[in-house]
């Protein structure tokens, strides 16, 4: 049966060693919606997003991805989700190389690389950075390139960890516009941010994580 629930989290606890990071009673994440993740520093926003995107493994039950126990979904998650770090890592080489690399990793062939890269960069208004070396970029530019690099994969679910932390107001507006366009194209977005104005403005739902 087709359901619009992507993630279902029930009574989930997560520990790093003996330190408890997460204690979630109930969260439901539905298809094609934009979710804001809010919580103080150390409330486990990044940890939760990494678990949901398959970057962090959990032995405990309580999280279901499209009805399946998340423990068994690692391979599916790697192909259906993408996570963008708060301070992202760019590969050595140019912005163009960074954009092309995920296409190569996912064996996306028979496509006009130049065109698809150009279009994605244009969406975030960073086409001028295309031939710049990654070490020449400012932290805001790195963030925008990392977002563009993730968007190029057309994943169903996109996790953005504090995407506005290094961006100016104009760039935040451009990002907002791009993300809204994405959500209209069957994409689920989960965004953590301290900028509650940014989240309240366009998120369908805000999830609050309490400090433990």
């Amino acid at each position: 049966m087709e359901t619009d629930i992507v993630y279902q989290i029930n009574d989930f606890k997560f520990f790093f060693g003996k330190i408890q990071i997460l204690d979630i009673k109930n969260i439901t994440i539905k298809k094609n919606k934009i979710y804001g993740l809010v919580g103080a520093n150390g409330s486990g926003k990044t940890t939760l997003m990494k678990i949901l995107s398959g970057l962090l493994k959990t032995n405990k039950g309580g999280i279901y991805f499209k009805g399946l126990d998340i423990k068994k979904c690692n391979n599916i998650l790697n192909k259906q989700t993408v996570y963008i770090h708060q301070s992202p890592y760019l590969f050595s080489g140019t912005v163009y190389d960074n954009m092309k690399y995920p296409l190569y990793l996912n064996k996306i062939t028979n496509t006009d690389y130049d065109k698809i890269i150009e279009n994605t960069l244009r969406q975030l208004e960073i086409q001028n950075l295309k031939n710049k070396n990654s070490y020449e970029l400012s932290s805001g530019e790195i963030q925008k390139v990392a977002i563009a690099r993730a968007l190029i994969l057309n994943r169903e679910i996109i996790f953005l960890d504090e995407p506005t932390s290094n961006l100016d107001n104009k760039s935040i507006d451009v990002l907002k516009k791009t993300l809204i366009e994405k959500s209209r194209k069957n994409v689920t977005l989960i965004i953590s941010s301290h900028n509650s104005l940014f989240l309240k403005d366009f998120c369908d739902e805000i999830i609050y994580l309490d400090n433990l």
Partner: protein
Amino acid sequence: MDLLQKIFYLIFSFDRDIYQIVLTSLGLTFFSISFATVIAVPLAFIIDFSNYKIKKFLIAFINSLTSLPTVVIGLIVYSFISRKGILGFTGLLFTPGAIVIGQTILAIPIITSTIVAGFSKIDSKLYETLKTLGADKRQIFLGIISETKILIVAALLFGFGRIIGEVGVSMMLGGNIKRYTRTMTTAIALETSKGEFEFALALGIILLLIALSINFIIHLFLKREDKWKRI
């Protein structure tokens, strides 16, 4: 001719004996580092990807192996390949092959620990970024190699610099046989004991130049890496 003139004459007249020794040293070290690389690079990855407790133990173990005296390694290998040893039938003792075996054993922990130390400075985000962008295990391995190649080359050069200057293994396993297993370090030791200072000093200067050049190249590599780290 005073001492300095004699030394420079030996170096710049391309004295056959001297350059034969230099080439032997370079060749043996090259082979030792090549074999060590095949083992050390994957080993560094295995250690880096181990779980926290095992990793901590393996790092401590590998680091402690780097301080093994060269003569002890020489002695251990000697006990295996000497006529009475388990591998005595191979007839490897006092051959270039024996030196390569000893130097490879010496180089493995040095290269491994240098690479692991370098990995620890790399952002864990590199692995996560590759994974979230859809890389499979092989692609993650190749991606990390590609992003850390400067660091790996620097570790190999560091190992080269350390191995070319060792004397214990070469002396014990090679036997310092002229035009066969005589390396720069064993020749320096021999010529000094004979009182042939010019010859020993000429070799010493060449060895010093090689070691300094390697350090300079490492410095250049690491400077390039600094740029890369800012990403």
